[in-house]
């Protein structure tokens, strides 16, 4: 088995465990490369039709190409996509630094959704190599009643004997892509022919390496105009993936505060 085969097989097994053990269940789809690869894996796991709804936590601030990509794929793949409009910025804690407020809006939107739909599980496409607090996550990560993450008291997670049950009123985050790296996702996207938002490919010496809200995400310098070139670029770069995401860099604990509050 190649590394991609191994990663794919494990992610499919995790998606199936989630489906057979956790209900009601939903999956977040941000239209980024990771969550679109995850969507592809879900289609493989369930033979073409995804048996749970896909949720876009919508701040109405995504780049226009991203919305166009959603509409196109929703039609082509006959997807059950639901937009969850996040609470406005005016309702967010004003002591938060400006660049993290969009993330806080998404956190609040997800909390509302989980409460309203009484969700017991939310599948999210985060990866360990993206960010050092994500590196400490569990595959099945239980949440406190308000969706918060308690990294100091995580339960053990042994082998692939996953513990999927949570107490009433709580939910579990399911992370099928934790073991994948950025370059793994690109290699898989290339191998499987998974569609991507065109913003990832360089135009005029710039490309988006990570997609976030339009006011807080910056393109990086790059000439990688194809997936092959992206992979070649990643094999040599020493720039972190989220360098263009302003929200990560405002303070040392910016991301940890978001994540313990319930952000993805």
């Amino acid at each position, binding site marked *: 088995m190649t590394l991609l085969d191994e990663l794919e097989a494990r992610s*499919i*097994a995790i998606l*199936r465990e989630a489906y*057979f053990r956790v209900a009601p269940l939903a999956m977040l789809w941000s239209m980024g490369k990771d969550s679109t690869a995850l969507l592809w894996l879900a289609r493989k796991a369930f033979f073409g039709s995804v048996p749970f709804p896909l949720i876009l936590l919508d701040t109405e601030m995504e780049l226009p190409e991203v919305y166009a990509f959603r509409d196109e794929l929703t039609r082509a793949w006959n997807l059950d996509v639901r937009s969850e409009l996040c609470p406005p910025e005016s309702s967010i804690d004003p002591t938060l630094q400006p660049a993290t407020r969009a993330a806080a809006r998404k956190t609040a939107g997800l909390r509302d959704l989980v409460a309203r739909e009484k969700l017991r599980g939310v599948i999210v496409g985060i990866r360990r190599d993206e960010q050092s607090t994500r590196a400490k996550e569990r595959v099945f990560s239980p949440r406190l009643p308000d969706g918060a993450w308690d*990294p*100091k008291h*995580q339960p*053990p997670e042994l082998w692939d*004997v996953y513990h999927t049950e949570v107490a009433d009123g709580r939910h579990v985050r399911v992370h099928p892509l934790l073991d994948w790296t950025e370059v793994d996702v690109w290699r898989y996207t290339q191998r499987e022919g998974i569609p991507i938002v065109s913003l990832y490919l360089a135009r005029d010496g710039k490309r988006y390496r990570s997609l976030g809200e339009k006011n807080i995400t910056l393109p990086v310098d790059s000439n990688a105009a194809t997936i092959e070139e992206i992979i070649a670029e990643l094999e040599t770069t020493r720039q972190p993936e989220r360098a263009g995401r302003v929200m990560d860099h405002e303070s*040392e604990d910016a991301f940890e505060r978001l994540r313990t509050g319930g952000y993805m």
Partner: protein
Amino acid sequence: MNQLRVVAVGHVDHGKSTLIGRLLHETGNLPDGKVAELRAACDRRGVAFEWSFVLDALQSERDQAVTIDTTRIWLRTAQREIVLIDAPGHKQFLRNMVTGASDADAALLLVDAYEGVSEQTRRHALLLELIGVPRAVVAINKMDLVGYDARRYAEIRADTERLLERAGVTATAFVPTSAWEGENVVSAGAASMPFYSGPSVLEALLALPARARTNGAALRIAVQGVLRRDLQRIIVGRIESGELGVGTEIVISPARRSARIASLVVWPPGEKVTAHAGESVGFTLDGPFFVDRGDVISDAQHVPPIGHSFRARLLWLGSRPLQVGDTYGLRFGTRTAKVEVADVERVIDIESLEGDGRREAQANDVAEVVFTGAQSLPLDAVADHPGLARFILLDGLDIVAGGTILAALGAQAASDLVPVSHLLDARARARRNGHLGAVVWFTGLPASGKSTIAMEVERRLFESGAHAYVLDGDNVRTGLSSDLGFAPEDRHENIRRVGEVAALFADSGAIAIASFISPYRTDRAAARRAAGTAFHEIYIKADPATCEARDPKGHYKKARAGALPDFTGITGDYEEPHAPELVVDTTLLDVDAAVDTVLAYIDEWILAPVRPGGRLPSPIAPEADSP
């Protein structure tokens, strides 16, 4: 595949995080700006530069300078990608250490040259074996603190070698290092240690053998569930070992039904004829067989043992001690079951790595335990099929242990190991008697109604032509157990004898109705072990006040007067069964209704399988469908 996952373990402060930080930095695996970012984080806390901040990302970890939870980070070299898993060395975070280790192919064990082998070094070595990490690279670290002394290195190396050998972990290399000074971490041949000519830590990691998948061995798939697509019933699961293809003859356990693979289903739609270990697959069978989540698919030649009891080694993580008689939720493969602790055979002392005579395990203890479940379970041993023999225990919603199945006990062995003549014999007996051999075990308080119900059930079975016999206190205490009194140890022995005799009755094809107070769970579990799948526990339930009011033999009155010491219900303790096959509440049912309830159960599980048109009596798994 050349990727390797390596867990760094060892006693707290022996330098794991520092060594990893060093490895990443010197191999160019830290992103630009990371070192400056860490320096700023250290400055803010007024501490000297800490490599460990690379991994200890949580604010609380940095503030307290301690690794709390496991993390991982990618180390890329030209030859191989290594995923480094950092695991905390603090005893209180052992759950996180095993979480990290359970995903690893090999370990990097650090031992402080100054402090030597310490408590968590021993515990981690023991746990590597339990978790299934077979080999380790050992770094004897902080050599700078002992003046790079060759004799000190040799001494610690010998201690560690002995420890790993006893724990059952193979050391592939010993490397004297100073992670702080960067000696022998990435490049070997540190000038400070001319006595050492072996590889650096990185070189030793690169030389580790690749992860192995067990193709070609016996087939095992834990069924995750069944999906319906276009009128097909697609069974899905991940192949733990072996391979399968269209036409492969398989056996579904624990029901032990045979079937053939009709098709492999893939998406996007395509042709697939074989699948191998490690793949997540979907397939259909050649008939309308009932397959459910938790079943195990094997090839026809290597069927898993089926039984109720097994011996396990586990790491206890519960806040309350693990004791005989406790019940827990068991999860292994994709199966969930309820099990009772039948025996705590050994609790390992961390100094000697031997059993220390304790009979209950405290948090962080490793123990060997016998479990008994009410249902038949497919019980592969960890030596044969590690992927299906690893389990967690749940107390409510909390994970309280992780462990491995060492061996099935009293299990119906795999079909290829059972002599054919024996199988025909059991089947012949069942056919002639018109029922399966069985032990129907009544337990309950004195005067709960056991004897009354047992005698009436025996009479009705006899009249219907069944071969049934009641074993009770009156016919056992006067002969077989005439040498025994009523103290707890005598009661244990009495029930042990009855359990063995009842099992012989069942083996001969009879229905033995054992009617005993049998107050202790362990004793009943032993009786269940003796009879295997032929055992049926029926709890004759009544509250103590009702029993005392009935008191047909005047025992309660005598006991109240002090004439019967250790009388169960007044001075002795009665331990209610946690998972009996049937509960008959005699405060709700009169005698006739209670007898009818028991007979209906016997009819379904002991008579019906042999009836023409009924389920065939499988001599291997008489209760093919678990309740």
